[in-house]
């Protein structure tokens, strides 16, 4: 594929690895924020091409992984309500709730539909006017405008049987939270390129200053990631902080204006609980008061039991970069993609899933 294959060129990746080796004099720990980047790194073995003094740790950028368990329980309860259709991206279906997952709910007779685009959920609602159709809206800033568009469509087209169960999260508050931890080992960040496609990176300048780190806006192909690491190591060695844009073919500093306008029309910033991590102030998006009637938590009066959290999953530690999937005693034993204890084992952006698919057990 044009403009993809060129950025997967192994010879360029090896040359960048050599460059990093020459530049890196001290020990540095770099966090790639996005789970898509984690998968690219582990799939291509980029971590094994880096010198021993450069450590990559995997960040919290897996929206499926950080969705709180009580929202999963609520999605399951909504799905099991008669005359209801729950629409979701496929990887939410295997995420364990307190008792079971959405796949089990489907097996019990719930109408759970896997969608490829949020717009599909509006079409399903239009075709089923006698049923309540709920979109389980999970994601970071990249997905927020796409889920937000469904609300605008449902409002404009008067699709009154449509609503949204929102678990949207934001990247910059998570970066701040990670750096506020005195035990944080992170020296620099590879920021998520596609999040910045929407938001731009004006606010990242202040973030780099506040966290005293270099932040490199980075793409997802192996050459992108190696160049992101190279730029980050270069800045660390020169004791520089600030923002650089490796992914300039796609990301502009001002981001996507239309998408930003839609987010600010449809959503409002709220405190959000991140599964395994805790509550992070101003780190989530809920529907704004203007569209409150489309909020599934407003439309359905569902009481779920207090969530059960003791599965033994270390996802919080993994997503804050405090340990790696292979450090978990359950990894590959009790916890596998078929019998997951936590979300990072099933999400396509989960670190445990990446290690399970592409690494030998015990390797890093």
């Amino acid at each position, binding site marked *: *594929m*044009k*403009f993809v294959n*060129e*950025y997967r060129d192994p010879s*360029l990746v090896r*040359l*960048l690895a050599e*460059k990093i080796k020459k530049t890196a004099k001290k020990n540095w720990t770099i966090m790639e924020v996005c789970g898509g980047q984690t998968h690219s790194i582990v799939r291509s073995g980029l971590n094994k091409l880096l010198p021993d003094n450069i450590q990559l740790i995997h960040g919290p950028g897996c929206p499926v992984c950080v969705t709180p368990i009580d929202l999963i329980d609520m999605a399951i309860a909504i799905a099991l309500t008669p005359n209801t259709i729950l629409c979701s*991206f496929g990887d939410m279906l295997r995420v364990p709730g307190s008792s079971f997952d959405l796949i089990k709910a489907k097996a019990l007779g719930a109408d759970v539909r896997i969608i*490829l*685009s*949020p*717009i*599909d959920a*509006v079409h399903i609602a239009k075709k089923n006017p006698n049923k309540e159709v709920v979109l389980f809206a999970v994601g970071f800033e*990249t*997905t927020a*405008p*796409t889920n937000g*568009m469904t609300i605008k*469509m449902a409002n*404009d*087209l008067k699709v009154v049987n449509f609503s949204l169960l929102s678990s949207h999260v934001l990247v910059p508050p998570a970066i701040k939270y990670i750096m506020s931890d005195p035990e944080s080992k992170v020296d620099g960040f590879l920021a998520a390129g*596609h999040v910045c*496609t*929407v938001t731009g990176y004006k606010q990242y300048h202040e973030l780099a200053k506040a966290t005293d780190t270099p932040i490199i806006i980075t793409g997802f192909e192996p*050459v992108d990631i190696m*160049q992101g690491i190279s730029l980050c190591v270069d800045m660390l060695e020169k004791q520089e902080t600030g923002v650089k844009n490796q992914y*300039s*073919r*796609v*990301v502009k500093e001002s981001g*996507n204006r*239309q*998408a930003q306008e*839609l987010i600010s029309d449809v959503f409002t910033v709220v405190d959000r609980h991140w599964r395994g991590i805790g509550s992070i102030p101003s780190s989530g998006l809920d529907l704004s008061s203007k569209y409150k009637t489309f909020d599934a938590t407003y439309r359905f009066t569902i009481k779920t039991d207090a969530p059960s959290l003791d599965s033994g999953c270390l996802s919080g530690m993994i997503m804050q970069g405090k340990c790696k999937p292979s450090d978990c005693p359950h990894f590959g034993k009790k916890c596998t993609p078929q019998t997951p204890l936590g979300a990072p084992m099933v999400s396509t952006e989960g670190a445990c899933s990446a290690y399970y698919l592409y690494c030998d057990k015990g390797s890093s």
Partner: protein
Amino acid sequence: MKTFSEDGILMADVDFSGVTKKVCLSFTPEVDIGTYVVVHVGFAISILDEQNAKETLNLFKEELL
């Protein structure tokens, strides 16, 4: 490839290396046919800057080779 309106939303048929899919253009309304876009969950979220993509690769090659 073509653009069209569906439910009042600007859409396009987009070619993914041989597979054609419907994509929403609400966030990139200025896009022309023949342009590369980044698509996320059925939405074009960014237009690829071809000149920039080529220059970045050439810069790598000059610097590294």
